[in-house]
């Protein structure tokens, strides 16, 4: 299926402004500063009355040149830049770059490192999804779930701060291991938190999922069929909600994902309700994964490679991918054998997920647009890098 994208100029000049009777179409700018576009994203909407006919995202407002900076810093120093791409699941981004380096240099990490990495990746997924839940409800008009989501996220943030040293940009998973070893009281804190969060997810269901207004606003709204989802290259919960059970943790397991037992949440139709439900279920499955791993952290070293060792990837192309909270992050390195990569490219999940809105929003109203965009869970710095 071919996707036809038009440039902004083409769209502006092709609308039916010459009609003399009937309703005219008009352009409106849902600008870079808008409470519900989750960052600096500009939408140019072609509306007829209240109905959206076409939507054109305009990107680039937070482009910082991360990939270009990567060409002049070493691999070890590039890891902290990936924190700032998708800042809500930053440890998983670090894992992406570390994985490429380790696979290319054929460094074997031990089980302790992989267990710790998996636990922290699932913690980040929980953090990202609780924040998403709050923001989703806030976009639809209910303001209190936002604060409930932040309250639950705060406990996790303080646990992560205790181990990693920072609250948002952790720079924790380095090539060759993790930066700090976990503290002795880590397991007890995590177990307390799991016991705290399980009833909270039921409360979330009581407040938001079982609410008739949310159900009426998300059911059969913004349907993304299987073929469309695959053509646009969406990954993560967006793809899984459309019915494709692609989860990197099950298909190409890395870390300790091959050794734990969890289910993949999949939707059936691909509307907003499915995307919402898939993320709530993913939270539950993350709790299952953490529960299975937290008691059996094997002993060992937390960093296998010396920090003075030089990282030089062999000449050629290297690619590896991880499953972040929003989709598949792919790290592609073209190396010419030197200290810093010749070209490093991050395949960001949010970029592909964002463009699927051009297909979904045609024929719907502005309120539906806000609901759809909120379930896609886009973080703009990841789109623009």
């Amino acid at each position, binding site marked *: 299926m071919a996707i036809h994208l038009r440039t902004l100029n083409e769209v502006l000049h092709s609308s039916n402004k010459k009609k003399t009777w009937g309703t005219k179409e008009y352009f409106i700018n849902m600008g870079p500063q808008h409470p519900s576009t989750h960052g600096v994203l500009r939408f140019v909407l072609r509306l007829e009355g209240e109905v959206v006919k076409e939507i054109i995202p305009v990107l680039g407002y937070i482009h910082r040149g991360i990939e270009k900076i990567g060409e002049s810093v070493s691999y070890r*120093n590039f890891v902290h830049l990936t924190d700032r791409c998708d800042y809500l699941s930053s440890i998983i981004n670090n894992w992406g770059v570390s994985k490429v380096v380790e696979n290319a240099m054929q460094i074997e990490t031990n089980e302790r490192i992989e267990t710790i990495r998996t636990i922290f990746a699932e913690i980040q997924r929980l953090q990202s999804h609780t924040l998403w839940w709050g923001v989703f409800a806030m976009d639809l008009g209910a303001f209190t779930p936002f604060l409930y989501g932040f309250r639950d996220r705060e406990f996790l943030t303080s646990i992560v701060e205790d181990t990693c040293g*920072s609250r948002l940009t952790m720079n924790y998973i380095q090539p060759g291991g993790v930066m700090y070893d976990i503290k002795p009281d880590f397991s007890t804190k995590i177990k307390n938190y799991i016991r705290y969060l399980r009833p909270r997810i039921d409360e979330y269901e009581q407040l938001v999922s079982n609410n008739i207004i949310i159900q009426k606003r998300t059911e059969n709204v913004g349907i993304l069929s299987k073929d469309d989802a695959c053509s646009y290259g969406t990954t993560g919960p967006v793809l899984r909600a459309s019915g494709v059970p692609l989860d990197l943790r099950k298909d190409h397991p890395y870390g300790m994902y091959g050794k734990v037992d969890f289910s993949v949440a999949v939707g059936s*139709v691909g509307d907003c309700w499915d995307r919402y439900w898939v993320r709530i279920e993913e939270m539950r499955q993350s709790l299952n994964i953490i529960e299975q791993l937290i008691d059996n952290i094997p002993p060992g070293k937390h960093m296998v490679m010396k920090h003075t060792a030089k990282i030089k990837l062999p000449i050629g192309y290297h690619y590896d991918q991880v499953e972040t909270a929003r989709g598949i992050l792919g790290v592609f390195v073209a190396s010419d054998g030197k200290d810093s990569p010749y070209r490093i490219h991050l395949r960001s999940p949010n970029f592909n997920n964002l463009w699927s809105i051009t297909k979904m929003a045609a024929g719907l109203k502005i309120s539906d647009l806000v609901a759809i965009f909120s379930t896609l869970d886009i973080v703009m710095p990841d789109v623009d890098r």
Partner: protein
Amino acid sequence: MNKNIHNHVVVAPRLKYRNLIKTVFFAFSSIGSGMILTITYFFRSIFVSTVTMEYPEKKNNIKISDRFRAKLVLISDNLDSPHKCTGCKVCEKACPNKSIYIMSHKGVSTKIELKNFIWRLDSCTFCNACVIACPFEALDFQNNFEQAVYDRRLLIYNLNRYVGPPKSYISKIESSEKKASIMPSLKPYEKISLQEILGRC
């Protein structure tokens, strides 16, 4: 996809179809249960405690982890127990965006000594590379996060308090006379001008 993943798949349920009367009852019950949840939090906030606390008044209740990265310091940096920095500039090379400048000179000992250790808080990303890279473990991050200033120039810190040899040199001196002869050469640092720092890069 080589592995059979279809036995581990949880499919989202579709919403039940309800006719008009059931919709009305469901509306009332769902809105009612949501409201009961918020009212329990309302009474909990009034009679038990809130989740937030007032910041400058109740500062002592905040527990910041000791690994939190807020301000770079040289470990034990005073005249009684000297710092360990030798001015080797490994941290300067490890820093990804040039937030550390080391100025060194040849001092009392035979090796290179530290003269000024400049750290720029306004461009540091707190990535911890310098702490890990230091071969003498001379650096550390403290966790006092109240670093806000009114003038941006105050964010350029000079970390060392004296100019002289590191701890490894001074601790080797057993005789107190020789120590006394070196001590006068340890002087507190003098202010260094911005031009000199910026001229270096």
